[in-house]
């Protein structure tokens, strides 16, 4: 069977790809062995393709073909460019943690702040300083997803954040991931642990420095919201127009804990956010929402898998896509309700607004319900702007552009309004409005 293999450059075989990178990747003892195993798992499967149900609409083999070589460690010039870009997306009042080309940049980060409430280390530091292989588990691949396995093998850095029992971090924690290079890839892997009753908001921003192009980002965030904890996680992908970004979130939610998830993709060439949420403690709640703003030739895929593993959990999902030009938006929402998960309440709504004849949207809600006493609903629509609404607004004095703008803002607002914190909702709204201004 023919496999598409990762190539460092033309003619270079798969296994050499890891070998070449390994000396630059952190971790001794067991870590390189675990990396090699993960790489084998990736190499066996190769890049995901359309014959795999989970990747049906996002055929990475066809879309990206090959994995690019690891980005070099950022030099002073790269850090300076990253700093300038990071400033532009800074969330007000946030504690900023910056990763540049897959490497943690303490000099651009607010590491000293909140050190009493927040324990932050870089993945590299944890893997290199652990006396034994105790931390090797950090690179264990936890699913059979090939891109997550590849991430486990290649992760060069990331953040390991823990928040102790009962602590509330009022300021948002913003992880800014900046790409400065071209035709290279960065693999980042972060861990986030909220102990019992802890509260935190984590914003992940993916951006590029000026001049960066054609890069690939592969990020994995593994998070645990302990019992009665509350985690808000926002992911905003605003990559360079020809960049690839594949991000995975693997999040477990404990008893009576709450997870608010929001993902917005507004630029790039190929983008996929896949979130795997396990509602593993009774009474836990998930609110997962997102917006894909798609133009040019962007392919933006948001895939959420919610596993209702225990009774009495609630999940609500609302996704909106605005697609223009030759763009394509994909939304897949899979809800699994296990046989024991009685009294589950799950809802899923996904709507796409198509602004051009070439625009495409794929909406795939999937409900796998194995319990009988549950309330589950889903709805999916796609269509153009309603001309009657546009005319009504124009008859009231709005220009065509302003009428469209108002209607599109209202459409995506249905999802954005689910963001709990005012300042973050405003932040996301401002980014979305910027996208609309550029488009119209």
């Amino acid at each position, binding site marked *: 069977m023919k496999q598409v293999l990762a190539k460092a450059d033309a003619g270079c075989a798969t296994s050499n790809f890891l070998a070449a990178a390994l000396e630059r990747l952190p971790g001794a003892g067991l870590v390189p062995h675990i990396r090699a195993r993960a790489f084998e798992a990736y190499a066996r499967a190769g890049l995901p393709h359309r014959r795999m149900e989970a990747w049906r609409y996002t055929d990475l083999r066809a879309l990206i073909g090959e994995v690019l070589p690891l980005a070099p460690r950022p030099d002073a010039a790269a850090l300076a460019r990253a700093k300038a870009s990071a400033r532009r997306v800074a969330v007000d009042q946030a504690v900023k943690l910056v990763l540049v080309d897959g490497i943690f940049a303490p000099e651009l980060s607010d590491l000293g702040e909140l050190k009493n409430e927040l324990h932050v280390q870089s993945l590299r530091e944890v893997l290199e300083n652990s006396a034994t292989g105790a931390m090797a588990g950090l690179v264990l691949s936890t699913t059979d997803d090939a891109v997550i396995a590849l991430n486990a093998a290649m992760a060069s850095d990331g953040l390991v954040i823990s928040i102790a029992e009962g602590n509330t971090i009022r300021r948002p924690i913003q992880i800014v991931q900046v790409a400065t290079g071209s035709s290279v890839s960065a693999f980042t892997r972060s861990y986030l642990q909220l102990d019992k009753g802890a509260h935190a908001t984590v914003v992940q921003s993916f951006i590029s420095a000026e001049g960066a192009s054609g890069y690939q980002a592969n990020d994995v965030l593994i998070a645990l919201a302990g019992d009665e904890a509350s985690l808000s996680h926002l992911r905003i992908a605003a990559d360079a127009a020809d960049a690839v970004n594949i991000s995975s979130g693997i999040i477990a939610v404990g008893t009576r804990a709450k997870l608010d998830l929001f993902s917005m993709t507004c630029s790039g060439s190929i983008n996929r956010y896949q979130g795997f949420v396990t509602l593993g403690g009774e009474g836990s709640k998930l609110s997962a929402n997102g917006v894909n703003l798609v133009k040019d030739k962007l392919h933006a895929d948001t895939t959420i898998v919610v596993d209702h593993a225990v009774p009495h959990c609630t999940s609500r999902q609302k996704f909106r896509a605005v697609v223009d030009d030759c763009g394509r938006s994909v939304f897949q929402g899979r809800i699994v309700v296990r046989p024991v998960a009685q009294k589950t309440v799950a809802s899923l709504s996904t709507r796409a607004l198509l602004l051009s004849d070439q625009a495409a949207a794929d909406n795939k809600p999937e409900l796998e319900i194995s319990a009988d006493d549950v309330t589950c609903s889903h709805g999916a629509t796609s269509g153009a702007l309603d001309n009657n609404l546009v005319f009504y607004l124009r008859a009231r*004095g709005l220009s065509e552009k302003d009428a469209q703008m108002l209607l599109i803002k209202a459409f995506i607002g249905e999802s954005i309004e689910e963001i709990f914190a005012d300042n973050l909702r405003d932040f996301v709204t401002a980014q979305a409005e910027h996208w609309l201004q550029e488009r119209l």
Partner: protein
Amino acid sequence: MTLLEIQDLNVGVDSREIIRGLDLMVNAGEVHAIMGPNGSGKSTLSHVIAGKSGYEVTGGHILFRGEDLLEMEPNERAAKGVFLAFQYPVEIPGVTTMNFLRTALNALRKARGRGELSTPEFLKKVREVAGSLNITRDMLKRGVNVGFSGGEKKRNEVLQMALFEPSLCILDEIDSGLDIDALRIVASGINGLRSPERAMIVITHYQRLLHYIVPDYVHVMSKGRVVKSGGKELALELEACGYAQFETAA
């Protein structure tokens, strides 16, 4: 002063003729009622004046204060002072009535060369008019017309008419879907807006509305043209004899 002058207007939809040689002249300060059976072209006329797409004007002119209205975008017509109160006002979820009113009012003021209203000025203005139309603060906070009853939607149209200060108001079956109490409120709101500078075209099936909004002129439309014009007594005649006599005349 002549506000609206329609000469020999011909309009088609999908190559079907809807309006065939219609003439109408409306001066400032006048209230004209247009009556006629279903399918006579009344709503099409209102849409063409307001600038809705999908209609093909195959002949004739519409002049507004001497300017060619058909050359203008719908929002330019609104800025010039044309206001259409819709027969079926649309629902716009996600846009609060307050936000909509403010956005539209500021767009109109800008186009008319006036500055934006400050927030307190705007609120004062809206609350004054809303109060007289029994429009609650809760309605203003809701999405435009979302969950509004038929009467509330029509009152919202009159609210806009009062705020946007048009010089030509076209009321397309403002009485449809209204019970008698709602009709009184709406009619009294409209009557309050009558002025020597402003003209109104009241489109209706029924004479009932014209008890409340007494017109200066009544026109009967049939098969795409005005077949009879007269004073307000013409409406009473129609009520007694029906439209049938005019269908043959057209």
